């Protein structure tokens, strides 16, 4: 479904843009429907760059990223929005993934309003309250700001926000590395449960072997921005 062919990306760093860092070199990878893929490697080997490219946030220098056969960079505007709905991403640092000055209700309601999933405000509120139960969160969080909730709660809300749009693919870029061991268990369990229910393909990225072993069917190693599939 979501495929990357010979994708590579390098960044120019330092004042005057004179030194080049090769982040991702000639990576090809495919995520099929309902598949759980694990990507592991030490930090700094280009994992998150690859994740952002797959999610269409970074334009690759070489190679293409295809969704159902179409190159995501060349999609017309309408189709690009549809692509956003199909492929969702959650980030490593939960607290920073939300607008610091927006109450969490607004943040959660945004995808609904963007894609006009419902007409009236009541339906929107109902939908959100029902989703919060599923995630095991209390509705008093609606009135809170991102820095007023714990890491675990924040990651749950990020997950909830992505799942509102019923995506086909969920990319999780090191979702638990910033969390404590106990909270980590909750989140991983939740991700596993939700992706299986709605057959969402999952690409889990982490540098922690235990997490990958527990969560994914297929594992890909990444070393120095290149892949060696095992």
């Amino acid at each position, binding site marked *: 479904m979501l495929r990357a062919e010979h994708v590579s990306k390098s960044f120019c760093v330092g004042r005057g843009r004179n030194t080049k860092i090769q982040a991702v070199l000639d990576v090809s990878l495919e995520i099929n429907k309902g598949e759980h893929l694990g990507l592991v490697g030490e930090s700094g080997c280009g994992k998150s760059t690859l994740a952002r490219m797959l999610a269409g946030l970074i334009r690759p220098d070489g190679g293409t990223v295809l969704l159902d056969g179409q190159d995501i960079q060349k999609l017309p505007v309408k189709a690009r929005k549809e692509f956003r709905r199909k492929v969702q991403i959650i980030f490593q640092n939960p607290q920073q993934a939300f607008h610091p000055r927006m109450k969490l209700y607004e943040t959660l309601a945004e995808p609904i309003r963007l894609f006009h999933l419902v007409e009236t405000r009541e339906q929107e509120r109902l939908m959100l309250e029902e989703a919060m139960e599923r995630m095991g969160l209390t509705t008093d969080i609606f009135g809170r700001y991102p820095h007023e909730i*714990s890491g675990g709660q924040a990651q749950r809300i990020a997950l909830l926000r992505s799942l509102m749009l019923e995506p086909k693919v969920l990319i999780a870029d090191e979702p638990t590395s910033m969390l404590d*061991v106990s909270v*980590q*268990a*909750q989140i991983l*369990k939740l991700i596993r449960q939700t992706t299986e229910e709605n057959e969402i393909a999952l690409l889990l990225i982490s*540098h922690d072997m235990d*997490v990958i072993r527990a969560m994914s069917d297929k594992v890909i190693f990444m070393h120095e921005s290149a892949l060696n599939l095992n």
Partner: protein
Amino acid sequence: MEEEQTRELWRIERLQVFFKTRGNDIMAVNEFSLSIYQGERLCLLGESGCGKSVFGMALLKLLPENAEVLGKAYYKGMETVGMSEKTFARLRGTEIAVIPQGAGSSLDPTMRCGKQVEECLRLHEKENSQVCRQKVLSLLKRLELPRLPGIARDYPFELSGGMKQRILVAAGIVCHPQFLLVDEPTKGLDWGCRDKVITLLKKLVEDEETSVLLITHDFNVAKSLADRVVVMYAGEIVEYGMREDVLERPVHPYSKGLLAALPQNGFQAIEGFSPPLDQIPKGCRFHPRCPHATGRCAQEHPNLTDLGEGREVRCFYAEG
């Protein structure tokens, strides 16, 4: 150790820390009483947000302006909470040292790493720079840093997370302190370097015989480094005892839950979330998440009860 009752380095009596914010006062540490002995390695274990770092910083008077510390703490008999900043500063670096939490941001980006370690030496021992540089290089060799001596002249942004953490360790140890506070040595580090840092720290601490207060949320660190373990939850000590007792045969429901949540024990997570410190529940603070919670737990706040051979627990169910 000289005599059985080793000399007491720290004695902390009912330490409390308040944070003044615009709205209300948040109590981060509640009634902390503890004593640390010479050459002992004590580990403070707890989830993020339970106030363990705050306790460490309060002990060393490194809290930000809006914090207020009550209670008493004695270092070698000297009362430190009330002590003036100037006198306490003389202890810092030589007798009491810190390995801070954020490895990335605790190093000055515009100063070479070697120099930042040398700085403590030159500040206290007043030797000439040549001798200092030799001492630092030998210490870095002990920490197995690659590309010596070149790496000493590198800047922090040129080093990886693991290497920066080792530089911090070097800076902490270089003056041979008697008491070392280590704050989250493995947080945010790669899975690979985590073990490396732990083994290095273990070797160093044993060679120097410094007493260590270890603050972490990582079980492996506690297991391999600590003599005694204190488990903290929502600003309070909930369980306290020797390493084997607490880590293998925990008594408090929260400690048991922590143990169960480890990947090797099958990821059984504890329900719910640790309460934010401005909404502390009544009675026992763990009762909303505790499987054995009874009516009494919700009403009454349990105290630390002694279970013999230096083990204490704060839970009605565990006493019973």
